[in-house]
């Protein structure tokens, strides 16, 4: 059935060649312009690995040290390049190890194609050695998935997989291919997929809704924008900046929207959400028009929905119809690609400055600066803070680095304080909050953009979840800069225990290994910093390194990340201490 729908929508080329299914898989990847894939071999995928050996001048296979690492590397690759990341694994345990990364890619809309080997089709459903129902397991966390049992289906299914992964709201796709299909020979030809009958990836922007939106925006006294990753995914950065500037609207970002316009842009008023900036959180409940662009009102952003922007007319620019009115009721929904919609919006907007309203953001920032930021990034006493490390990285990298973070306090601090001058510079696990994401994602990012400085910032907890990828760093000579902010705690959980569980630090204290020795064990240059005076020189040395470099910074053990909206509270109940 699968192939029927595809054949209807496209012509197949007449040039055919008789090759095996496994060779076809590799040839399909080449046809999709895939140059790097991440994976781990095993019995059910060996025919493909054998072909990869043959085609190694065309496709570089990166041997990750764990399939989860392969998916995160593919994600990092995708997030910095905007292309589809590819991960490959064997059946059974290889396939199940991909699931965390697939789930992460699904919730963060990252384009990824995963290919898994499967036991021979006559063994399916028999609990054969290393058989799992990976299509069943991955169904809730994939945009689409499919099992192939015939070699002749491979080209159409892989073409469809890439098309679905990258189009519309991107996401992960899994293709499971039985071992007999990998061996079987057939007449190969490849045609890219450009259409799937039942799938409408980019709803056409309705001009009327844009006009209605423009009218409301032009009449607004206190408008505010919250933008998300949709701006980056549709490459709408320029169009977005033009809209913000022409209408003079203060604009705040969700964690995945970070870097779409530079941190230093005068109308960039910071991050929203649980650990977001004070002003945009407070003023969400004062603005008269809230313009959401390519964001989905995640609960980490909105807090209590019953108390979220109730006074505001909400305008939602969104590509995915199922997000409209899902969490927040809109006055106007503009369905479509963000760039297309913003291009239509721009000429309809009046020039404006909203300077008094913008001043409110600046005033609240001043309060946040005094109470929180100053001590976070320019502390004068106590141990090292995470904020001052991030600040030092900003200084030494001139805000040009791509920052890849893991999950926890350091992630919030890095996203809050990193200076982003370029788009696609903030690579982090937003929706799933996957510890262990950082290091492998940084490897993928660096390999996709070798010209860019890629700095991975992790906590001591998350780092140890995928620490084995140091092996990949070493083998691939991936020149990532790895910073571990070591507070000897699962810091973010400890913070919650302190604030909401009476300081009962249940299983959050970490007795850590000698991280420097471990890095050196993988032949990676390494240094440990414990004092403020050593920090600048160590970061400078790291940034100057042409190779991978590991820097452990021992930071204050019990610092907290503020501002903070306690979970379930209103965004205007944001706490500064």
């Amino acid at each position, binding site marked *: *059935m*699968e192939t*029927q*729908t595809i054949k*209807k*929508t496209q012509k197949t080329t007449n040039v055919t060649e008789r090759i095996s299914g496994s060779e076809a898989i590799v040839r399909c990847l080449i046809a999709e312009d895939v140059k790097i894939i991440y994976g781990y071999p095993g019995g059910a995928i060996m025919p493909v690995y054998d072909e990869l050996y043959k085609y190694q001048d065309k496709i570089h296979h990166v041997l990750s040290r764990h399939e989860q690492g392969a998916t995160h590397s593919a994600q990092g690759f995708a997030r910095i390049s905007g292309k589809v990341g590819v991960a490959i694994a064997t059946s059974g345990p290889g396939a199940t190890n991909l699931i965390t990364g697939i789930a992460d890619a699904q919730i963060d809309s990252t384009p990824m194609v995963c290919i898994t080997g499967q036991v021979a089709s006559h063994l399916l459903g028999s609990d054969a050695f290393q058989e799992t129902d990976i*299509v*069943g397991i991955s*169904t*809730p966390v994939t*945009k*689409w*998935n*499919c*099992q192939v049992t015939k070699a002749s289906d491979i080209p159409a299914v892989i073409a469809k997989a890439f098309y*679905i992964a990258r189009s519309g709201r991107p996401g992960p796709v899994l293709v499971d291919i039985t071992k007999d299909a990998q061996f079987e020979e057939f007449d190969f030809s490849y045609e890219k997929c450009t259409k*799937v*009958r*039942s*799938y409408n990836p980019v709803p056409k922007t309705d001009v009327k809704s844009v006009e209605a939106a423009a009218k409301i925006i032009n009449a607004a006294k206190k408008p505010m924008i919250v933008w998300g990753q949709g701006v980056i995914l549709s490459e709408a950065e320029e169009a977005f900046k033009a809209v913000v500037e022409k209408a003079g609207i203060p604009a705040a970002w969700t964690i995945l929207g970070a870097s779409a316009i530079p941190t230093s842009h005068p109308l960039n008023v910071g991050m929203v959400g649980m650990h977001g900036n004070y002003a945009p959180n407070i003023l969400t409940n004062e603005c008269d028009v809230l313009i959401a662009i390519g964001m989905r009102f995640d609960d980490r952003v909105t807090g209590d929905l019953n108390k979220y922007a109730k006074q505001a007319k909400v305008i939602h620019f969104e590509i*995915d*119809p*199922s*997000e*409209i*009115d*899902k969490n927040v009721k809109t006055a106007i929904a503009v369905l479509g690609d963000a760039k297309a919609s913003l291009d239509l919006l721009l000429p309809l907007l009046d020039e404006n400055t909203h300077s008094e309203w913008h001043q409110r953001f600046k005033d609240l920032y001043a309060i946040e600066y005094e109470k929180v930021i100053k001590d976070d990034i320019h502390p004068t006493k106590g141990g090292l803070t995470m904020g001052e490390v991030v600040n030092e990285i900003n200084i030494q990298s001139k805000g040009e680095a791509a920052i890849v973070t893991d999950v926890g306090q350091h992630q919030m601090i890095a996203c809050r304080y990193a200076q982003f001058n370029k788009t696609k510079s903030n690579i982090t696990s937003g929706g799933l909050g996957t510890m262990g994401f950082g290091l492998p994602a940084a490897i993928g990012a660096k390999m996709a953009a070798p010209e860019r400085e890629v700095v991975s910032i992790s906590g001591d907890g998350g780092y140890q979840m995928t620490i084995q990828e140091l092996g990949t760093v070493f083998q691939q000579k991936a020149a990532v800069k790895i910073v571990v902010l070591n507070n000897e705690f699962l810091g973010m959980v400890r913070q919650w225990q302190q604030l909401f569980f009476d300081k009962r630090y249940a299983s959050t204290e970490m007795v850590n290994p000698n991280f420097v020795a471990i890095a050196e064990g993988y032949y990676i240059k390494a240094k440990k910093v414990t004092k403020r005076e050593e920090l600048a020189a160590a970061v400078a040395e790291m940034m100057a390194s042409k190779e991978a470099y590991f820097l452990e910074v021992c930071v204050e053990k019990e610092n907290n990340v503020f501002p903070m909206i306690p979970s379930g509270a209103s965004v205007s109940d944001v706490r500064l201490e």
Partner: protein
Amino acid sequence: MSTEKQLYTISVYTENNIGLLNRISAIFQRRHINIESLNTSPSEIEGVSRFTIVINMTEENIKKIIGQVEKQVEVIKAYYHNDNEIIYQESCIFKMRSDLLFDEREIQNIIKESNARIVTVNKEFFVIEKSGKKEEIELLYRELSNFGIMQFTRSGRISVTKEEMKISTMLETYNN
């Protein structure tokens, strides 16, 4: 928009592909929505399947669910309707002991009055089939259970809408 819970019938037109039932039912499972009945079959269009799903919920929530269903790549279109907007039927079959058919006059009356149909009779048992509304089937069940039912089974709801559901025209535009 109605904020009361009520029965809605969802019709989902999909490509006829393996695994879709799993994807669609997972949408309900994840949100702890109990499916009252579910039926899947070919539709009037070749290669297109139709799911008929009955659930009890508010209109606001059903809209969100429909959005999630339509988001699946291989779903062509999903609709929801209340009972006034559709013509619907369920069907059921009963297996009963054959001696009842000859010994109990009343059974024959029940069969006649309920518009049920005898499908087969042999020495040990006979089988009755009936299509109708849920209440009619429930009534027949109650009446027959007085005599002892050997087996009973009942299908999911199937329905057609009173209004047109322009799927064919929609598919034509997709194909062009």
